[in-house]
């Protein structure tokens, strides 16, 4: 089909995005990675040769791939039923459930770890309940401090991503092929394998690529829940080499190797995805809960129950713990606001209320600015990518998506090095933190927006053009409403990522800026675990409120 809207050349229109990413991403990261190829002022492969010659680092490399692959498969399996449920069925409490699935994303890893220990640990809720039921002593479920714990935590973090992306994708294509197959008498399994799965494949790949990269670069989970250095990944080694051993040559060389691997993965995936562009834009009519068959209802309830257990278990434990205290060492725990009070009035005499208010204000301000920036840049970029002819579309998109292949630790250190060099030296930390958050969140926003933008039928735009609508008008009145689900889920991710980000923030803040995760880290660092639970509870509530607000805007039209 020849489109009269035409496909204009997009290189020039992509330029602003390229300049933005060059300054906020490529330059700082390149400065850092280059160190991996330099020694004593000369170019050298010395560090790389050393890495590949070492049995230890080869093991690390293999383990990184292995755990990421396994985690991805498990997360997809866990997210698939939810993707169907959210895209096909209207059920009571759906909005709340959708908001809940984003919680794992916003929790600072240190709080997740605390929640996991309190819930899954040897003395945790699960073990105590089971021990009570089975009348036994000692831990019954021994998951933590092992490879199992890494997988469990990765599924906790990532199956909500799978669920959301699969649901967004599934919503966008028509029921008629499935109906046709059903009319022809195909069995349910056959329909799933021959119609649904191929239709879903791009969405699945999209989710899988994100989750794989995320697990590939996983950091705190590996470090804390694995229980020891034998489960080490490239990301963790980069961090250790650069941050603790101050071994910039080896660290940068390893970061370089890791980045080359992720660039390859990103590029490979985008090439595959571009072959599978859907041009349909049908919004699925959803089945009401009461119209489901009993077996479907039972399955859905079981799934929802398991999700609630896995997601809410650790989180609720943190929240409940924040309201519990023991008046004396032998007494049973009672409800109390003690930890909140202690958080508000630290012993040092400095007003805790002011600090808490500042942390909340900073976190909200940074997250809101990040949300606005990523949505504007994201919508513009996905529009350029979907509506223009580029000489190297795969390469261009990969280059724009690259930030998802670089860790926040590397990004933060890169910023520090860049800012050390005069020109950028006087940038206020707030701006560098916002830039870092925007760069980190942008790929997630593009992931939600670009498929939605690509699915819009060009003849719809042609029709609007024939009726005299200009480019801007077409964007506002056709494209923007049609990509709205993508905007909302992308925006939610951007907001959440910014609220929970701690690695780059900590490196860049110089203690001048306290965000909520940083305050939690400090509470834990000064023995105040229960106050940390209390502040974590506040963070969770802020996020729930924000997501309900975002979803409420979504609901206005219907």
């Amino acid at each position: 089909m020849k489109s009269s809207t035409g496909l204009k050349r997009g290189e020039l229109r992509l330029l602003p995005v390229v300049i933005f990413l060059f300054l906020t991403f490529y330059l700082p990261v390149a400065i850092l990675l280059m160190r991996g190829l330099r020694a004593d002022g000369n170019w050298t492969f010395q560090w790389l040769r050393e890495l590949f010659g070492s049995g230890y680092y080869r093991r690390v490399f293999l383990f990184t791939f292995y755990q990421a692959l396994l985690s991805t498969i498990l997360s997809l399996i866990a997210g698939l039923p939810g993707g169907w449920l959210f895209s096909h069925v209207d059920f009571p409490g759906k909005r709340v459930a959708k908001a809940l699935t984003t919680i794992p994303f916003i929790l600072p890893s240190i709080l997740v770890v605390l929640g996991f220990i309190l819930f899954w640990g040897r003395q945790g809720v699960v073990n105590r309940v089971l021990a009570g039921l089975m009348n036994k002593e000692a831990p019954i479920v021994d998951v933590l401090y092992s490879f199992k714990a890494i997988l469990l935590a990765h599924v906790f973090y990532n199956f909500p991503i799978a669920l959301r992306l699969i649901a967004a994708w599934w919503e966008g294509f028509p029921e008629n092929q499935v109906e046709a197959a059903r009319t022809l008498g195909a069995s349910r399994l056959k329909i799933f394998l021959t119609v649904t799965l191929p239709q879903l494949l791009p969405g699945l790949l999209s989710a899988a690529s994100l989750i794989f990269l995320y697990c590939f670069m996983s950091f705190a989970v590996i470090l804390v829940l694995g229980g020891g250095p034998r489960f080490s990944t490239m990301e963790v080694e980069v961090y250790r080499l650069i941050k603790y051993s101050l071994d910039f040559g080896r660290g940068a060389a390893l970061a370089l190797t890791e980045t080359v691997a992720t660039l390859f993965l990103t590029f490979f995936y985008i090439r595959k995805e571009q072959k599978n562009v859907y041009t349909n834009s049908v919004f699925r009519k959803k089945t009401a809960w009461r119209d489901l068959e009993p077996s479907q209802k039972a399955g859905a309830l079981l799934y929802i129950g398991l999700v609630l257990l896995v997601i809410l278990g650790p989180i609720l434990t943190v929240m409940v713990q924040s309201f519990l205290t023991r008046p004396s060492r032998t007494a049973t725990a009672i409800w109390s606001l003690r930890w909140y009070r202690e958080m508000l009035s630290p012993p040092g005499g400095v007003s805790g209320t002011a600090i808490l208010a500042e942390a909340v204000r900073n976190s909200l301000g940074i997250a809101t600015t990040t949300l606005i920036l990523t949505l504007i840049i994201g919508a513009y970029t996905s529009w350029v990518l979907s509506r223009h002819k580029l000489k190297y579309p795969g390469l261009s998109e990969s280059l724009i998506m690259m930030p998802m292949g670089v860790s926040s630790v590397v990004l933060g250190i890169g910023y520090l090095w860049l800012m050390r060099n005069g020109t950028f030296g006087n940038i206020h930390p707030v701006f560098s933190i916002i830039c870092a958050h925007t760069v980190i969140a942008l790929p997630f926003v593009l992931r939600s927006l670009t498929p939605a933008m690509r699915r819009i039928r060009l003849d719809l735009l042609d029709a609007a053009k024939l009726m005299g609508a200009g480019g801007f008008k077409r964007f506002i009145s056709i494209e923007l409403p049609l990509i709205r689900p993508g905007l909302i889920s992308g925006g939610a991710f951007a907001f959440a990522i910014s609220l929970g980000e701690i690695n780059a923030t900590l490196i860049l803040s110089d203690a001048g800026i306290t965000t909520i995760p940083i305050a939690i880290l400090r509470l834990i660092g000064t023995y105040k675990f229960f106050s940390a639970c209390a502040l974590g509870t506040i963070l969770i509530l802020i996020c729930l409120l924000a997501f309900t607000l975002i979803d409420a805007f979504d609901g206005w039209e219907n």
Partner: protein
Amino acid sequence: MKKYLLLLLMLTSVSSLFAGGQKEISVVTDNSKQLNIYCYDSFASEWGPGPTLVADFTEKTGIEVKLIAPGDAVTILSKVIMEKKNPRGDLLIGPDNNLLDRTLAEDILVPYDAPALADIPAELKFDETNHLLPFDWGYFAICYDSEQIENPPSSLEDLTKAEYTKSLVLMDPRTSSPGMGFLLWTRAVYGDDYLDYWKRLKGSVLSVTESWSNGYGLFTSGEAPLVLSYSTSPVYHKMWEETERYKALAFEEGNYLQIEGVGIIKGAANPEAARKFLDYMLSPEGQEVIATSNIMMPVNPYTNLPEAFNMAFISENPLLLDKEDIGENQMSWVQNWVEESGL
């Protein structure tokens, strides 16, 4: 369309509120006469000694102070090293005895013969060149939960016993200073055979955590009855929670020392103010603030301490490795540990 405009309006008003708040901060950072102090983040935190020290100091001297704390002691050190040619800080708070050799080798500090040094016991003056001055100290120690264990171990060797299977939480020497302290501790006791000890110890270890806070969290939430921490940790629980449930163990082989240091940065814009602040830190008054909020022992013997500090033991056999030995071999000790301990 209205709702998009409304949403946009709401977002911009939120962000402008926030931008208004930021202006106040940048006014403070523009002050060039202030004293800039690099310290680790828990020192500068609302609950650490930093804010109180600064408030008292400013009230006494009229000198404005800014605390800059981008991370832990190692991060601060690498930041000061990065800025060597164009230093932005005046005072560096944080490098301990294990970082001493690296700190001195980088030539980033100038010596200062503080008057208070006369009062400080000789064994705590860990840098005879006085580039890095001690400001607090403690021992690394194994702490135990007296509600879970009745017969606590009394030596490193005891820890390897079967009764402590999966009972001990340690920290990774690559990412945490207690972790490094424990590795050096085993090195100081067992010498070249330290890895054999680690292999014997393996069965007792429940988890090797990234940071002290993660590990101590495991301990206080009841996951493990034994944890690597400091001789002063019980002081905290006594002072703020009024419990003697958690106790620190003095080991027969001795306990490894940690001494935290402070030094004046070479090329500092404000060395005079830096010296004044350092003097204040070492005075009995400043030492009391540091000891009670850092929960470490003061270096100045004339410091008033709350009774809770009786919970911290004094080792009869403090251990310390030679700083050149550490500087030269630390990397290979750690790498061998990573590859051979099996943890």
